[in-house]
Each structure stands twice: as structure tokens, then as C-alpha cells.
């Protein structure tokens, strides 16, 4: 009998109020704790990475000097590449030749203008016959029309 009564009293057992509150708080804050942990891990990795990078940079400066940073070299090596310099030099040489040819052609065109002066000698006859087939320049035509 006494045992039966005792067993029935078990239904009225309740946890301590302080324990209930603490347990509830722990369960509800579980998500926040997880994200806080991720941030901590990430921050930690960044710290480590930055430290490694700084050490690397310091080693470069100590061992090779700032002017020998390999990342700058390809650009500078291209600048002193003899084949690209030679290619630019050749382009200039071609331009000099072209300019020279232009002047020569211009000079020849002017110096070989057939004279519009009348030819009186007999030797001029074949030349005149040949010229009859040729076209006149604008200035030659104007000279003839002015006479």
C-alpha cells in the first residue's frame, strides 16, 4: 500500500525551475553558437594566411631585394627583347625608304615635264609626233591656251 502511494506521487515530480530555464536557453541558442564558431574559424584562417603572406614578403625583401620581385619581370623583359626592338627599327627603315622614294618620284615627275615651248628644229619632229599621242597636264594645257 505504501509502495502504491509512493509510486502515484512520482506523477507530481517536476524539474527545478532554474534547471528548466538554463536548459531552454541552451537549446534555443544552439544555432547562434554554430555561426559564431564558423566566423571564428574563418577569421582564424585569414589571420594565418595574412601571417604567411607577410612572412613570404619579408623573406623576398630580405633575400632578393624589392627590385627583384619576379612579378614585374615579364613586362620589363619584353621591353628589352631585341627581336621586338629590331622589328620596330625595321619599320622605321621601310618608312625611310618609302619617304625617299616619294621624294624621288616627285622630283622626277617635275623634272621630266615636257616643255611647252615650241620646237623649231628638225630634230624635234619625231619627239613632237610622239608627244601628239600623249596627254597634256593641266599646266601645259593652260600654257598653250595662253599663247
Amino acid at each position, binding site marked *: 500500500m505504501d509502495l502504491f502511494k509512493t509510486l502515484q506521487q512520482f506523477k507530481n515530480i517536476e524539474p527545478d525551475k532554474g534547471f528548466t530555464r538554463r536548459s531552454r536557453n541552451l537549446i534555443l541558442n544552439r544555432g547562434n553558437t554554430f555561426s559564431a564558431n564558423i566566423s571564428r574559424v574563418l577569421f582564424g584562417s585569414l589571420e594565418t594566411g595574412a601571417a604567411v603572406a607577410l612572412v613570404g614578403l619579408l623573406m623576398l625583401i630580405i633575400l632578393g631585394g624589392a627590385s627583384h620581385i619576379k612579378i614585374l619581370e615579364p613586362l620589363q623583359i619584353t621591353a628589352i627583347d631585341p627581336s621586338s626592338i629590331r622589328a620596330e627599327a625595321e619599320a622605321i627603315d621601310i*618608312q625611310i625608304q618609302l619617304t*625617299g622614294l616619294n621624294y624621288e618620284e*616627285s622630283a622626277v615627275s617635275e623634272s621630266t615635264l615636257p616643255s611647252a615651248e615650241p620646237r623649231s628644229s628638225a630634230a624635234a619632229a619625231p619627239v613632237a609626233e610622239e608627244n*601628239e599621242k600623249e596627254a*597634256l597636264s593641266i*599646266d601645259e594645257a593652260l600654257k598653250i*591656251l595662253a599663247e
Partner: protein
Amino acid sequence: MKKIFIPIIAGLLISAASGGNVAVAQQDAACELSREKFAEISGAQNDLAPDSTGRIREELRVRKSLLREVVDCATKELSSLKSDFEKIKSGSQEARALQAQFSPWFSETLNYYALQKSAINDLGLQGSKDFARNVHAWRGGNFRPTSKTILQFAVWAQNQEFVQIAQNRLNQVKRAIDVFGLGINEEIREGSRAAEIELQKALALNRQAKEIIRTYGDSDEAGKATKYSLEFLASTYQKILELAEKINKAIVR
């Protein structure tokens, strides 16, 4: 760029050598001033008695017709020159400024020819001869020298690209000397100085050529300055090449 410029210069050259048979050959068939056509003047003179009104009228008709043809040819010649001139596209601001300076000359000259052509109808026999003499003199004093200057301008404008490339190249080489810490090498420092001296000579002559062109000075002088400027540019490259070899040796060491 060069591919664009070469035909332009060739075109300008043909026009600038104006008066030459090359120019005539380039004009279209309608613009061919054959000697046969001009022989018609003497034909008209011989057909009738020297003092007859008919002879004078016929000679005048032939002369006026030929004058119209010549002025049309001159207009076509100018239009062709204008078309080539407008194809010049330079990245240099100075070249663009010069191009803007020369541009109005084309419209002024076209107006001149239009005005001259409109006056032909009213000419008498002696007037037609004076007209031809005046147009010929005008071309000698205006058209020919200006078109020569424009040819020099085309060559000069083309060279600006080469000048710019050479300047950039020397600057890059100088930066490389700094980056590799070779400024302390006496041989390299001296090589850099020598290349700079050659480049400065090229730049001075380039400026001189531009000034002659801008002021419509002696186009032969402008041509010489342009040519020498290019030659100094070539010797700049020779110095840069020697310098680059010295730098490469120093880096390997």
C-alpha cells in the same frame, strides 16, 4: 595604319606632282587633255583668212571649250587630292590641328575654279588667252606649293606614329633599367644617355618639319627635316638595341 597611309601618300603624291603626266593618267577619261584636241586651235587658225570674223569666232569657240575642259580637270584633280587628304587619320593632336588648318583651302580652291569657269562665257579672244595665263600663274603661286605642303604634311603625319612608338620604347627600356637596379652600371647609363640624345635630335627635326609645314614654308626643307628626323629615329633604335643587349648581359650575370 601604314597600310592605310601608303595609298593616301601615293594619291597625294600624284596630285602634288600636278602638272605631271602621271596626274593626267590618273584622271578619268573625260579629263584627258590630249594634244590632238589642242591642235584644233591651229586648225581653226588655218581654215580661214587671218582677219576673217569667222576664223576669230571659230578659234574663240575652240579656246573656250578647251578652257572649260581644263578647269573641269583642275577641279577633278583637286577633288581627288581632297579625298586623299580626308583619309589621313592621325592619333597625333598636332597632326589633327594641321589637318584642320589645311582643310579650308580645298573649299576655297574649289570656289576659285567654279568662279573661273563661270567667267569663261564672257571672254573674248585675247581675254581667253589672259584667262589661261592668270589661271596658270595662280596655280604656280597657290595650287602647286600648297599641294606640295599637303604632301609633306601627309608624310609627317604618318611619321608621328613612329616617333611615338620610339619614345615609348625608350621609356620602357629606362623603366627596365630601374626595375633591375642597373642604374649603377656605367656602361648601361651611358647607353641610355646616347639613345636619349639621338631621340632628342629626331624630335627636334620633327618639330622643325612641322613648323615649316604649318607656316607653308619651303616644302623641300620640310621634306629634308622629315627625312633626317626619321634617320635619327633609326639611329635611336640602333642605340636602344645596343642598350638592350647590355641590359640582357647584365641580368644574366
